[in-house]
């Protein structure tokens, strides 16, 4: 019924190789883009932007970044929080040192700096694997947080050690600081999210991504067929850290406006993003979005239902939130170990045959 391929003819290689070869899928994708670009910015308010959409978009970028490393290249990382902090602090230093440069450039540069740091901490991956690599990246997490707390140069010697995003604009539209309009901050993050998703999608289905997946599936075999593990692993670290750095920069500059490294970029952040990709689906761009939505939007929804609609005490709702989210994670992983992306894939497969499954 849905997803019917009959009558959906593809006459060129380009059509055959596009991201969404099925017409229905493609139109749905265009519809989502249309709503995100042409509808949401006109109806968005502060609450929707700051409580739901900004964190969702920003965490989606971080999840895409981590998914490239963990899901596509098979290198487990617990350093996400630390790398986000690199992006945030790089962005802060750039913003304050060069106030006149466009925020687009700052955010991209912050990503590039994080990529360099990521490559540095990716070096151990050439020698160690699996849990041992996880521990090495865990060291990166703690080291980076310590670094930003220890040396006042990183926070411009402010008394409190906090970094605050000053007001900056893009083409005359204020996008950081308290006077930024909801639609402007949303649009800015949306541009980066779409850009990240498209770049990541095309990287992962090209030769680079195939090399990553070869390394993930069996590194010795990959080496024998001619994949250079040094280059494959380090490019994965670089690309992954780039996206994570961009998300860290947006997280600080656009979303929160003021951060403190230990609180905002601690080990819990690393776990949060890792959970997003595990729940969403390893090795899937859609999974990164689904995981981010699951862990960002669900707690807020539960809060709205519990406190605002049912009028329950806030502490009970907060505890219930933990219970429900935790239970759902367990349920999801029992029902479908490959995450929401796999559930979605199965659902599509079923819909393709529905209503005549045989």
């Amino acid at each position: 019924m849905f997803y019917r391929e009959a009558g959906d003819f593809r006459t060129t290689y380009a059509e055959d190789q596009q991201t969404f070869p099925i017409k229905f899928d493609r139109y749905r994708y265009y519809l989502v883009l249309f709503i995100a670009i042409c509808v949401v910015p006109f109806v968005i308010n502060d609450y929707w932007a700051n409580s739901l959409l900004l964190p969702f978009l920003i965490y989606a970028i971080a999840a895409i970044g981590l998914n490239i490393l963990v899901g596509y290249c098979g290198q487990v990382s617990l350093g996400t929080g630390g790398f986000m902090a690199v992006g945030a602090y790089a962005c802060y230093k750039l913003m304050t040192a060069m106030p006149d440069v466009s925020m687009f450039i700052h955010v991209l540069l912050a990503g590039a700096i994080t990529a360099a740091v990521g490559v540095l901490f990716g070096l151990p991956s050439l020698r160690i694997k699996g849990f041992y690599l996880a521990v090495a990246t865990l060291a990166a997490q703690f080291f980076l947080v310590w670094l930003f707390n220890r040396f006042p140069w990183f926070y411009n010697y402010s008394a409190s050690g906090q970094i605050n995003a000053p007001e900056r604009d893009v083409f005359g539209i204020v996008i950081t600081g308290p006077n930024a309009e909801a639609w402007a901050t949303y649009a800015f993050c949306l541009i980066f999210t779409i850009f990240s998703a498209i770049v990541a999608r095309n990287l992962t289905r090209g030769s680079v991504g195939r090399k990553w997946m070869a390394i993930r599936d069996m590194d010795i075999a990959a080496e024998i067929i001619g994949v250079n593990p040094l280059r494959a692993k380090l490019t994965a670290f670089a690309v992954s850290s780039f996206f994570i750095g961009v998300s860290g920069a947006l997280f600080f500059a656009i979303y929160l406006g003021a951060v403190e490294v230990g609180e905002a970029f601690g080990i819990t952040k690393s776990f949060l993003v890792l959970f997003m990709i595990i729940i969403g689906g390893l090795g899937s761009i859609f999974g990164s979005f689904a995981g981010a939505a699951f862990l960002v939007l669900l707690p807020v929804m539960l809060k709205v239902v519990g406190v605002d609609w049912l009028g329950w005490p806030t502490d009970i709702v907060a505890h219930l939130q933990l219970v429900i989210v935790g239970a759902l994670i367990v349920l999801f992983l029992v029902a479908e170990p490959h995450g929401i992306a796999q559930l979605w894939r199965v659902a599509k497969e079923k819909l393709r045959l529905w209503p005549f499954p045989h």
Partner: protein
Amino acid sequence: MTYKLGTLAVAGLMAASPVMADLVFPSLSYRTGPYAAGGIPFADGYADYFTMLNERDGGIGGVMTSVPECETAYNTEKGVECYESLKDSGGLVYQPLSTGITYQLIPKTTADGIPMHTMGYGRTSAANGEVFSHTFNYPANYWNGASGAINYLLAENGGDLNGKKISLVYHNSAYGKEPIRTLQELSKKHGFEFTEVPVDHPGQEQKSQWLQIRRDKPDYVIMYGWGVMNQVAVQEAANIRFPMENFIGIWWSGSENDVLAAGAAADGYKALTFHGVGSDFPVFDDIKTHVVDKGLAAGAGDQIGTVLYNRGLYAAMLAAEAAKTAQEIHGTPDITAAMMRDGMEALKITEEKMTELGLPNFGPTFDVSCSNHGGTGLVGVTQWDATAKEWTLISDFAPTDMDVIQPLIEEDSAAYAAENNIENNCG
């Protein structure tokens, strides 16, 4: 579960009744997470005082109050979410009870024209109203606290701290780092040796820090801690047999939760305060009749009279008085956030007013003005009695060293003003 039913009913009523006509005092509370032990009593005190005003006086100036709560878990992201979700309810003043969230909200509240009161926490230089138009931190701030502790030690040592060693054990965050500059300046002025001992969030593990203190043998230890960090520190201090009377906490390290765990070993531990302790004030009779006996107490209702409950109550009292002042200035009982700001800026707390409110000698007297949002910065010292299980005020509310603090406030706020292109608000 029975006590929950009461709050459930109140919360249900609050959700059901239209909030339009009420004076809304949002409470960004944290009843969960590692800092809940401090967040619960404060939120209870804050809510109970307004409940009492509603029950006893029919609100403030004839308008009922409401206190919608939002759980932040001391987490900045949730704090932002809470602020945005409560913004539409027409909140008059925000009190986040978290320095991290405060930093986030200073620019936001200023842009939205909603005042924020960070009583004894937040950004210290917000005391300069010329730069921070919508942020208030009366009656005392972190730097008053640091100076208050040193002044107390000066008095104990006959005015001379030369050659003494003082260590600062602090929560390694914006909050804990605040007093460092002040203490460095004071160490230059008074000639004591100052060392910093950071403790990382949440502070459950402090063995190495206290080993360092045991090795350094400081004469005095000052602590800027919060949550579980406090009780661990007190316990560790007891373990290395550090004399408790030489151990002084800031007001956020001076509640019952912090010392009860260490039992008798915590006897003699001192903490700073800017308000009275205990429940020996007439207002608590009203709380009992109008709130507790009617089953309207917030939370479990078991926190009444604790240090942090009193602080929440004090914060609520100051907010209510500011609202009254605003009603007088603008001649209308239905005030807006902008009017509330005017009320806060014109707030005068006198001894007569406190006595009238049933809180004689509860806190220092102070005036707020356009340029001074920090009050007078009077700080007292309390001491824990482990056998009686109570805090007692052992000094008067004494002035702090504004000669040192004021230039620091000017400097820090000037930096903020330059960063954000702020003109002098008081012109």
